[in-house]
């Protein structure tokens, strides 16, 4: 391939803050721990809602009862295999027709991956695939819905971070999926992230959708 001045495109600017925050998520006591101190992007929001009743924070309660497990060190080959298998899952899903509230082979397989013992590594790979723009927008939007819909507290901090991050994704479809995924969390601590997204969202329809989620969340505040 010949690169001329006409075809050369500089690499997109690296979002250092996003990378830094991602690595900090990995720094909990164990892989899937929601650690408010280490996970700085969420820490301020968490502190703002420190007085939210315990029953409104079921995901953290689940974390607290989760015993630490032995950390597995992935070899580079294992990581490459994991990435390739996830890529295949997302690629195959491009053929699906998704329907709100209905499971699909894709959602079942995705949730099965996230129920694995090393779900944190799976989430890290998903985050990297999102950063690489390797997931089709409609499939990513569906993924975000299910990351919000997951019933237990597994990899909650990772999921919440990715959902909040995708509120600013260039794809309209992905932003819609992020809004819905966050709404499924029903966690008042996401209010600041939604308010930031509301102030930056250029499309009236999505602003209206964000406002609805904010209204629902404010109703469950004590």
């Amino acid at each position, binding site marked *: 391939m010949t690169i001329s001045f006409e075809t050369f495109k500089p690499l997109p600017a690296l979002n250092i803050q996003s990378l830094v925050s991602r690595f900090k998520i990995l720094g909990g006591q164990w892989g899937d721990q929601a650690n408010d101190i280490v996970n700085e992007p969420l820490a301020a929001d968490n502190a703002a809602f420190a007085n939210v009743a315990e029953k409104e924070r079921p995901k953290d309660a689940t974390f607290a009862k989760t015993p630490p497990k032995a950390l597995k060190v992935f070899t580079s080959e294992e990581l490459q295999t994991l990435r390739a298998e996830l890529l295949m899952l997302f690629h195959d899903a491009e053929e699906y027709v998704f329907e709100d509230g*209905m499971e699909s082979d894709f959602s079942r397989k995705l949730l099965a991956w996230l129920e694995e013992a090393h779900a944190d590594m799976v989430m890290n790979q998903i985050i990297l695939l999102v950063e690489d723009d390797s997931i089709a927008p409609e499939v990513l939007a569906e993924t975000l*819905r299910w990351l919000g819909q997951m019933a237990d507290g597994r990899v909650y901090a990772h999921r919440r971070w990715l959902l909040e991050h995708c509120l600013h994704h260039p794809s309209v479809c992905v932003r819609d999926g992020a809004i819905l995924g966050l709404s499924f969390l029903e966690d008042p601590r996401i209010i600041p992230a939604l308010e930031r997204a509301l102030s930056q969202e250029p499309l009236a*329809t999505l602003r209206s959708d964000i406002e609805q*989620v904010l209204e629902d969340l404010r109703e469950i505040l004590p």
Partner: protein
Amino acid sequence: MPLILRTLRKNKFVHELQPAWILQDEIQADALKDLETTDNDLSVWLIEEDLSNLDRVLAALAANRDQLANIDFALISLDVITELGLLFQATPGVTADREVSLLHRDLIRLTANRLAALAQAIKRYARLERRSKAQVRSLLLDSIAAGHIDPSSLKEGIASKLT
């Protein structure tokens, strides 16, 4: 004049959310995925003009699902459907609410052309709305309290999230 309700993902039909190359009077092809036909029929629901049965229908449709989630839908006047020359057939639906099941209709003998015309009409004339997960929970609880829906008929993904 009654209205027709079709569940779909509303943002596929909102013009400002479609790719920039879509012309004002056109609709993206992906929107047709949400109008999937079976034997050339499309499932819709009859809604009173005053919307008095809308919440009950939405609750019944939500009760049929695997998970408690938002429900997006289009409401379009029966006039528009008639003007498009689309044919109706009353066929019993399958919901947890027997009365709602009677409101099921099929738009029948659809061709690709008619389906595209319907999609355009939805984009142009329909009210596109969303009920959030929290709102759907309220609708379901109301229908259960009114005795319209038997809670034991709900799937685990919904029943476990109602409280």
